[in-house]
């Protein structure tokens, strides 16, 4: 016999237990329909594993446990599953929960089941799993899954097993009667727990208002081999609270927020122990329990062994309900229970009592008065809290402070409300505060999660932007590098300047060659003449004269002829070049403007080159004009010719530079981001148009097929199939249409916002490019014609030209020059677009050139004849 300690506070409400202890436990009648809620315990609800219409047997598992904190549920009787759906469940909210409804067939036929032969042979885990599979949850009130309570692991060493048989709440006698009638079975259940937990001491705590139960248990434990005690504790509410009973029996206080296992104690309700016995020794799942039906509203208050899922109405009928006298139906005891409104609510594993209270028993509570700070609540609080402070904090929603005052240690026993002289519904305040705090915590968790997700998304987007920027940068660098490389390659080996030099050299060589030929010819002629002339002195003089003449001619020809030839070409070239330069300049300026707008890299460089080009172009035109002027004034003097040559070279260099710049610009423009986006846009547009076209095609086809179907009227079956296939197609088409539309719209939008200028520019650029090409073509043509002309002129023996003939010839060339100049001036005045005019002028020029060369060739023959005749 152990010592009994005490806990703080407690009250002594009228017990009202005697009414229901007069009769033994009866079997409740089988209800027609059983509603078995999927959630009858703390934790995760079970998941239905049967379907409507299934035949089930008594004890068959109809709901699987979901995870650790869950237990399965079983059919309480045999029958058919008639519904799985919402049905009112025992809950203070009076709301519905998911239930499996079974229409009983009255046979009450058990599924095959059998006892565990020898539970001692099983390992702990197997035994615990077995208990879980039998659907056992705490039957004292909270309904904590029993298996979880027994699964202690290595963290806890248990020295005491407390069996809670206090049953302190008024009216309830379910455990009392159970102990009176089935004490040996209870001790059998304790055997199982003893084997599982192996405590050094087992204590059954029972209130001293149940002497019969006490004696029955005493008798039953006589044969127990282990250390077991039945201890009678003084009747005081709420000694049946887990923590309070532990303190009463062992004087150990369960720490705040801890579980009894933390102090080496496991506490099990006597009803749970009985269920474990039934499960282990008979193999029966938890499908029934003892329920007290009592109160002034029933004739025959009694305890019933009731199947889980039996509606309250069935029990009330069995106990002889007097409907007029029932003012309030309460599930659980009057202190901690809750009232219900629907009598169709089924009984669950945790329902220990139904109180059909009359008006006298439970009068309507008096209205609450102001708190007078009497402190009675503090004196009765079994959890040693400050109910008054909690009340103030709960009322003003100071939840943080309420938590600081250990609101969550409140067991909601209702002792404070019971003693409150002002009738303040204190427990209701605490419950409200608790649920509010839980809700806040839930929201906090949710908002933390939302923050996490938001930040993750933000990071992801940022990363995408960074990557894009990095890519763009890399691309720009690449372009810059390639450009630089191109420039370098242009500058170095195949410089057009060198080309020109080469050309000039070639020309010079050709001229030398011609001179040589001319000299040869002359010597030949001279020798032939010399032999003919008899007068030697005269002949000599003549020869000398001729020789000197020849030398002069030679010199002049030597100096002038190639000049003349190239002068014609150069003037042309200059003209074209100037025109080109102007075009390029315009284009370059445009590109610059665009580039500045787009703030493309290398703008400065571009600008520099453009200014340079500008200068060069103006220089070139200046030089050209100078050259022209000089050409018009040009006499045979060599200095001027040399000057012209120099100028020509300079012009040629400028021209080549211009060409280079042009190439560069062309490149620049194509690597330009604007044009790139333009390209992309056009591509997008094309892409967008593609699905649209496909869509239109598809629609047309569809329509065709539809018309075909209508007209051809194929067999019924195929038609049906066709429509079947057509309908998803239609859906796909719809989707495609929406997408295509948005894409098209997007592309158009982008085009509208970005493109107009660029488009213009690009077309202009392309126009310009084509113009340039045509120009170049013309140049090549003219050059070719010139070369032809030159060839014809080259083969003429122009050595013996007289000075007068040369002059006239020169005059002709001059006229040619002036005409070319006029044409050029025109072209310049009209700027780049005046290509056609230029072309005409060039044609004219070439024509003149031809004429001039023809004249030259015709001239040279008569002179030679004249000279020698």
């Amino acid at each position, binding site marked *: 016999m152990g010592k009994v300690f005490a806990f703080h506070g407690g009250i002594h409400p009228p017990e009202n237990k005697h009414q229901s202890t007069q009769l033994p436990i009866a079997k409740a009648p089988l209800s027609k329909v059983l509603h078995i809620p999927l959630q009858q315990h703390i934790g995760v609800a079970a998941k239905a594993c049967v379907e409507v219409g299934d035949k089930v047997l008594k004890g068959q598992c109809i709901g699987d446990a979901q995870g650790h904190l869950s237990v399965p549920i079983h059919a309480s009787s045999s029958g058919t599953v008639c519904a799985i759906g919402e049905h009112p469940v025992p809950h203070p909210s009076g709301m519905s929960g998911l239930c499996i409804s079974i229409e009983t067939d009255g046979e009450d036929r058990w599924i095959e089941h059998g006892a565990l032969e020898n539970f001692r042979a099983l390992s702990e885990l197997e035994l615990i799993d077995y208990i879980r599979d039998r659907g056992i949850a705490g039957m004292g009130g909270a309904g904590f899954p029993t298996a979880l309570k027994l699964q202690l692991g290595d963290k806890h060493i248990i020295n005491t097993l407390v069996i809670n048989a206090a049953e302190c709440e008024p009216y309830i006698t379910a455990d009392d009667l159970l102990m009176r009638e089935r004490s040996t079975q209870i001790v059998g259940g304790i055997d199982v727990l003893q084997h599982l937990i192996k405590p050094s001491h087992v204590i059954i705590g029972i209130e001293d208002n149940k002497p019969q139960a006490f004696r029955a248990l005493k008798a039953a434990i006589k044969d127990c081999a282990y250390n077991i005690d039945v201890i009678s504790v003084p009747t005081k509410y709420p000694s049946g609270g887990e923590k309070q009973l532990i303190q009463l029996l062992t004087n150990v206080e369960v720490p705040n927020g801890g579980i009894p296992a933390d102090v080496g104690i496991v506490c099990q309700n006597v009803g749970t122990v009985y269920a474990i016995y039934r499960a282990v020794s008979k193999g029966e799942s938890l499908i029934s329990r003892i329920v007290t039906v009592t109160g002034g509203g029933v004739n025959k208050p009694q305890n019933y062994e009731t199947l889980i899922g039996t509606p309250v109405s069935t029990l009330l009928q069995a106990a002889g309900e007097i409907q007029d006298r029932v003012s309030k139906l309460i599930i659980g005891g009057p202190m901690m229970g809750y009232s219900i409104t629907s009598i169709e609510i089924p009984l669950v594993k945790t329902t220990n009592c139904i109180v059909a209270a009359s008006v006298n028993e439970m009068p309507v509570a008096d209205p609450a008065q102001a708190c007078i700070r009497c402190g009675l609540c503090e004196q009765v609080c079994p959890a040693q809290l400050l109910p008054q*402070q909690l009340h*103030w*904090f709960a*009322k*003003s929603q100071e939840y943080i402070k309420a938590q600081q005052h250990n609101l969550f240690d409140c067991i909601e026993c209702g002792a404070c409300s019971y003693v409150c002289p002002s009738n303040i519904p204190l427990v209701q305040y605490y419950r409200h505060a608790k649920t509010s705090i839980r809700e806040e915590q839930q929201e906090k968790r949710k908002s933390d999660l939302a923050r996490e997700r938001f930040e993750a998304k933000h990071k992801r987007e940022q990363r995408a932007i960074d990557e894009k920027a990095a890519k763009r940068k890399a691309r720009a660098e690449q372009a810059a590098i390639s450009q630089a490389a191109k420039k370098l390659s242009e500058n170095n080996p195949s410089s057009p300047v060198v080309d020109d030099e080469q050309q000039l050299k070639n020309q010079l060589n050709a001229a030398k060659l011609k001179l040589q030929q001319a000299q040869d010819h002359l010597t030949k002629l001279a020798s032939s003449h010399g032999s003919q002339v008899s007068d030697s002195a005269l002949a000599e003089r003549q020869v000398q004269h001729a020789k000197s003449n020849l030398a002069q001619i030679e010199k002049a020809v030597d100096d002038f002829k190639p000049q003349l030839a190239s002068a014609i070409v150069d003037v042309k070239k200059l003209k074209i070049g100037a025109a080109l330069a102007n075009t390029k300049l315009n284009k370059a300026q445009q590109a610059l403007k665009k580039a500045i707008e787009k703030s493309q890299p290398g703008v400065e460089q571009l600008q520099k080159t453009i200014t340079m080009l500008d200068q060069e172009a103006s220089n070139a035109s200046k030089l050209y004009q100078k050259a022209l002027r000089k050409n018009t004034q040009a006499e045979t003097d060599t200095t001027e010719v040399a000057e012209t040559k120099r100028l020509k070279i300079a012009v040629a260099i400028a021209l080549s530079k211009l060409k280079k710049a042009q190439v560069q610009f062309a490149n620049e423009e194509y690597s330009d981001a604007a044009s790139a986006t333009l390209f992309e846009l056009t591509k997008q547009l094309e892409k967008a148009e593609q699905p649209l076209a496909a869509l239109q095609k598809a629609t047309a086809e569809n329509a065709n097929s539809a018309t075909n179907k209508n007209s051809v009227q194929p067999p019924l079956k195929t038609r049906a199939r066709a429509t079947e296939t057509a309908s998803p197609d239609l859906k796909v088409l719809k989707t495609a249409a929406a997408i295509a539309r948005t894409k098209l719209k997007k592309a158009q939008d982008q085009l509208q916002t970005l493109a107009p200028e660029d488009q213009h520019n690009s077309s202009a650029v392309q126009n310009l490019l084509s113009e340039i090409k045509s120009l170049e073509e013309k140049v090549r043509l003219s050059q070719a014609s010139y070369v032809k002309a030159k060839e014809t002129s080259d083969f003429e023996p122009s050595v013996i030209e007289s000075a007068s003939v040369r002059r006239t010839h020169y005059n002709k060339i001059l006229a040619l020059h002036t005409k070319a100049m006029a044409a050029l001036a025109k072209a310049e005045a009209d700027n780049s677009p005046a290509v056609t005019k230029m072309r005409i002028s060039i044609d004219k020029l070439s024509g003149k050139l031809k004429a001039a060369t023809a004249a030259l060739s015709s001239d040279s023959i008569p002179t030679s004849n004249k000279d020698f005749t």
Partner: protein
Amino acid sequence: MSDFLLILVSTVLVNNFVLVQFLGLCPFMGVSNKLETAMGMSLATTFVLTISSVCSYLVHQYLLVPFSLTYMKTISFILVIAVVVQFTEMVVRKTSPMLHKVLGIFLPLITTNCAVLGVALLNIKKMNSFMESIVFGFGAAVGFSMALILFSAIRERVAVADVPSPFKGAAIGMITAGLMSLAFLGFSGLVKI
């Protein structure tokens, strides 16, 4: 030793700076809405009071007296206090940003807390020694902290209580302060100093 104890009892209870001498009422009413804030304020003020009491003693003894500048004591004490408060603010901002935010303007206003300057000046007036100044300053700080924390704890409870609407807020605070002051007057005669 008993001298120090007497000084301590005298400053904490009998001549409590807030409730008996009515110095430093500004933070007493201003930062007593929440217990946590009041505790932070108490710690800050205790630190400032003790340090500034010591510093002002040293400045007075070794700077003002030798140069016969005692007529400058108020201005130099204010300087000392301002420096100590500034230093405290930096420490608080670093160690407890939330307290810094909550104390807000009251933290720099410790400078103008008349209890702080009062302690420094009373030290001189009473011709306290170095140790006595320390104990005097510390005692004053403890007295201030005690009054402030008690008052804020009461106010927290009053805040959630049924107070007739005309008395809600500052009014009931004033009444509470008055009642507390009355209670502290009961200590007079406990020690004669």
